[in-house]
């Protein structure tokens, strides 16, 4: 049992516990806060995997921007919790059974079928070297330039779409 494995297990427990907390919280605000903690835990996993850039992007974009947007909408709508109503009583047990089937199937297929093999070494000094970040940026702007530009158009379209959806309609008579 080395330090890496202990760190992984502790973080994994936190990640799964916060995910279950999000799933089970009655109050949507608590769900959102559990999810923030989950995202930050995943960011620490990225650091363990030697991906500091993605870890920081995760914290700023996911745990920062996206969850703030969620909290704004929850509080704007005042929709913290819904009144109790059981429409389909067999749905929840069935969902749990199907969830276990999904988890078994996914783990089995991912572990038995073609995939990269091996062990993940703890990130060395190279992970924090500016040169590594430079290589990442080069790869992003050379090999993946077109997807990058398309993403900017996607973000623009999403912004315009959100404005159009929220805008008050003017009635023309």
């Amino acid at each position, binding site marked *: 049992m080395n330090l*890496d494995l202990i760190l*992984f297990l502790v973080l994994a427990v936190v990640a799964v516990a916060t995910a279950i907390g999000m799933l089970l919280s009655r109050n949507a605000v608590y769900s959102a806060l559990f999810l923030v903690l989950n995202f930050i835990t995943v960011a620490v996993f990225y650091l363990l*995997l030697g991906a500091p850039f993605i870890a920081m992007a*995760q914290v700023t974009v996911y745990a920062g921007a996206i969850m703030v947007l969620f909290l704004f*909408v929850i509080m704007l709508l005042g929709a913290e919790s819904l009144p109790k109503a059981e429409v389909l009583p067999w749905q929840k047990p069935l969902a749990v059974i199907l969830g276990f089937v999904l*988890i078994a199937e996914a783990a089995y297929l*991912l572990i038995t079928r073609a995939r990269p093999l091996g062990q*993940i070494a703890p990130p060395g000094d190279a992970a924090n070297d500016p040169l590594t970040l430079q290589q990442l940026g080069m790869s992003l702007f050379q090999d993946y330039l077109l997807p990058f530009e398309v993403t900017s158009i996607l973000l623009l379209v999403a912004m315009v779409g959100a404005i159009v959806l929220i805008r008050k309609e003017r009635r023309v008579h």
Partner: protein
Amino acid sequence: MVEINYYIILSAVLFTIGALGVLVRRNALIIFMSIELMLNSANLAMVAFGSVLESFSGQIFVFFVIAVAAAEVAVGLALIVEIFKSKRSIDVDQMNSMKG
């Protein structure tokens, strides 16, 4: 040293919790958060694969996924606000007609 299998199993577990959230919960906002959780678990698997293969492609894909998730959240939350305006509720059981 951590086996990549551990990361794969963790990713599968988180994905399943997200899928359960979509199936079980009725609050549209929490269903949306569960979708974010599923995206995140897939990202974790991608970074783990990239780390094993010593390639940047995994990280770059995750970067794009984060950008797409941000766009998706902006539009999705706008839709939820609109639905709330017309129905006064974000219970997905109430959303059974296409008419606004």
